[in-house]
């Protein structure tokens, strides 16, 4: 025993400096290397490259030409399709984002009830999220079909003569919103996790104090869930601005460009008209818009998001929310 201990000590002594100087120093980087490589080669590299080519006239076939801010000037001042598609996307986001939050939260609250078979419903509501975007769009193409669609069949049962959803300019964007809502099970799941995380005793004490269901929802659920809402709000906004698959498969941007999303405009510039530089400029504009919106939401979050671990005596809203909830 006595012999082993010093041996171990010398072993440790020889190992320690070696770890610091040689192999041990590199190994952490080797462990991150796969990620780092992926990040540099497939995220940061293309990102910077796309910024570079946005200053060029860059066709796939033919000569590359430097145009400075030409692409940006062209899209802001001359391209009617740019504004048109941007408008469509903003309209879509304005409809989709709030509805998405409300529907996902509503479903999560339903699933949070302790009823029999809630596990089944949880699976059923999440199921659409498992289906890939294109397959989902194909399903909706059938659902929406004016003549043979199941949606209009159900509407006809209650005496409503349904529109030809995908070929009617009044309804096509609404159809996009509905189809997009259907696949948002992951958001519902995040809400559900958030709901499960709210301590039961808050509700208990509230009901002892005589707070009704709605009051409990407003004063406990909403504040306690606000970080989750923030996260879902931001991912919703990003998803709304990136919406492409549905339009591409369901409507092709039509009818009459009523579902011509900005992402689709960008996609067509790149892969139909092969204007890579111009399309990269489009993409950077979108990037900045989404960045700006996310920034605004984060900024505003100070006023409405409540973190449990947060101890800020100065914030009135939060202490107010607390007072109300207890």
């Amino acid at each position, binding site marked *: 025993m006595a012999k082993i201990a010093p041996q171990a000590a010398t072993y440790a002594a020889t190992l320690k400096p070696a770890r610091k100087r040689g192999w041990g120093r590199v190994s952490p980087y080797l462990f991150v290397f796969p990620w780092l490589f992926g990040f540099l080669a497939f995220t940061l590299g*293309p990102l910077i490259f796309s910024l570079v080519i946005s200053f060029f006239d860059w066709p796939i*076939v033919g000569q590359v030409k430097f145009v400075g801010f030409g692409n940006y000037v062209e899209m802001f001042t001359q391209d009617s399709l740019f504004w048109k598609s941007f408008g469509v996307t903003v309209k879509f986001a304005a409809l989709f984002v709030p509805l998405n939050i409300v529907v996902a939260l509503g479903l999560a609250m339903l699933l949070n009830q302790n009823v029999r078979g809630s596990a089944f419903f949880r699976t059923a509501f999440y199921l659409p999220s498992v289906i890939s975007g294109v397959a989902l769009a194909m399903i909706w193409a059938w659902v929406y079909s004016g*003549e043979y669609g199941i949606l209009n069949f159900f509407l006809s049962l209650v005496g409503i003569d349904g529109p030809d959803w995908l070929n009617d300019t009044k309804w096509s964007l609404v159809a996009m919103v509905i189809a997009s809502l259907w696949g948002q099970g992951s958001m519902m799941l995040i809400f559900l996790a958030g709901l499960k995380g709210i301590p039961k005793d808050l509700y208990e004490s509230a009901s002892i104090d005589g707070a009704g269901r709605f009051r409990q929802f407003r004063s406990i659920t909403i504040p306690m869930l606000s970080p989750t809402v923030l996260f879902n709000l931001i991912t919703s906004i990003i998803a709304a601005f990136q919406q492409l698959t549905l339009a591409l498969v369901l409507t092709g941007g*039509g009818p009459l460009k009523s579902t011509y999303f900005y992402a689709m405009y960008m996609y067509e510039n790149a*892969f*139909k008209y*092969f204007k890579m530089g111009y399309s990269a400029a489009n993409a950077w504009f979108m990037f900045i818009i989404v960045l700006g919106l996310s920034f605004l939401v984060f900024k505003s979050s100070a006023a409405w998001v409540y973190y449990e671990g947060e101890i800020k005596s100065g914030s009135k809203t939060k202490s107010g929310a607390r007072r109300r909830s207890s």
Partner: protein
Amino acid sequence: MKKKSSALLLATMMGVSLLSACGGGGDKAGNGTPSASPSASPSAGSSSENTGGSENAGLTGTIRFASWDTGDALKIQQDIAKKFEQSHPGTKVQVEAYADGFDQKLAAGFGAANPPDVMYMWDFPTYHQSLEPLDDFASKDASLNIEDFYSGLFNYGKIDGKLYGIPVGFTTRVVYYNKKLFDEAQVPYPQDGWTWSDFQDIAAKLTDKSKKQYGFGVRASNDTYDLQGFVWSNGSSFISDDGKTIEGYMNSPETAEAIQIFGDLVKNGSGVLVGGKGQQSGEDIFKAGKLAMWESGIWPLGGFKEAGIDIGTVEMPAFPGKPVKGIIAESALSIAKDSKQKELAWEFVKFYVSAEAIKMRTADLPVRVSVVNELKVDQDPLYKPFYMMLERSDNTPAFLLNSKWNEVNRHLEAAVEAVVHGASAQEALNSAVKDGTRYLK
């Protein structure tokens, strides 16, 4: 630098073509590194093959052949490729069906300097810089027998006087009609030389909404290329002959009148919008016996016959006092500039337009006069109007007149879509001209 960076950009798109290139590359020693040194190998490859193989002998290797067709039409091409392999031992033709992604995949191939050797082609203004001029091949090679082709067909493959594509098939456009529906309504069949007002009368007479039967099917989204025949027939065009102006052409009263016809048909109910998203195509409705007339090329003819519809075909209607004009939709074969085996590629192209191969191509019309005469295609009453329309097809389509036409067309397409959905043709075309003019500068 440029090649490297665009290769990076297109990394995802290239997946398919790279894979297939590797698959075929092993067969030939000289083709082992398909994309590594595009600048060095073409000269070495083609010159060495040049000496040995001008007379078809000794040419071996694998060539890649890209097609946009699918289904039966693709099957025919695969059969022709097999025939070529049989008659040219030691060769292999790898048919790559790009289908809907044709342009994307082709552009990616060119961008990465790894294009297919031989490809289907129609959009010469966009791609000609990446294609091999074929004048030398064609003039040196007497066995091609250029005189035997319908003369107008070569114009579509020429840019700045250089020939970039050999026509392999084409079609003109006619009006199909369902004889049974005409008989039931006791309306006489349309005759060559009819006018657009005849057309509108007939369409109205043959519409019976209680049976969901319509006189004509109007496409919800039209290929403006196909509409040029109507516009020419009314003495106008989408773009000036020098390819520099659209103001006063694309939005001339005559152009608007021609496009408005389709909008009016939908408005007054004697035409029905077809082929929108989730809707049946015009061909399907015609096959179901619910459309009296349908306008198209040769493609649906076989399907109509199979469906048991008693069809007739007739020339396009005329605007009063003006000659009817037609449009040709042509497929050509081109050879990539970056191809390492141009001699073999040329041999394949030549085989593709041999009488033997043309007879196998039943999906469109034969390009050789001798084949037509032998098979008496133009004597068949169903086929005859196609050949009469061919004689009327001597205008130059817009895309050949300006290399930026694709982008102008984006706005024209939107305008036409607006018209068939009820907008005024004159107003829609005016705004298309306003949006499209900037590309021409």
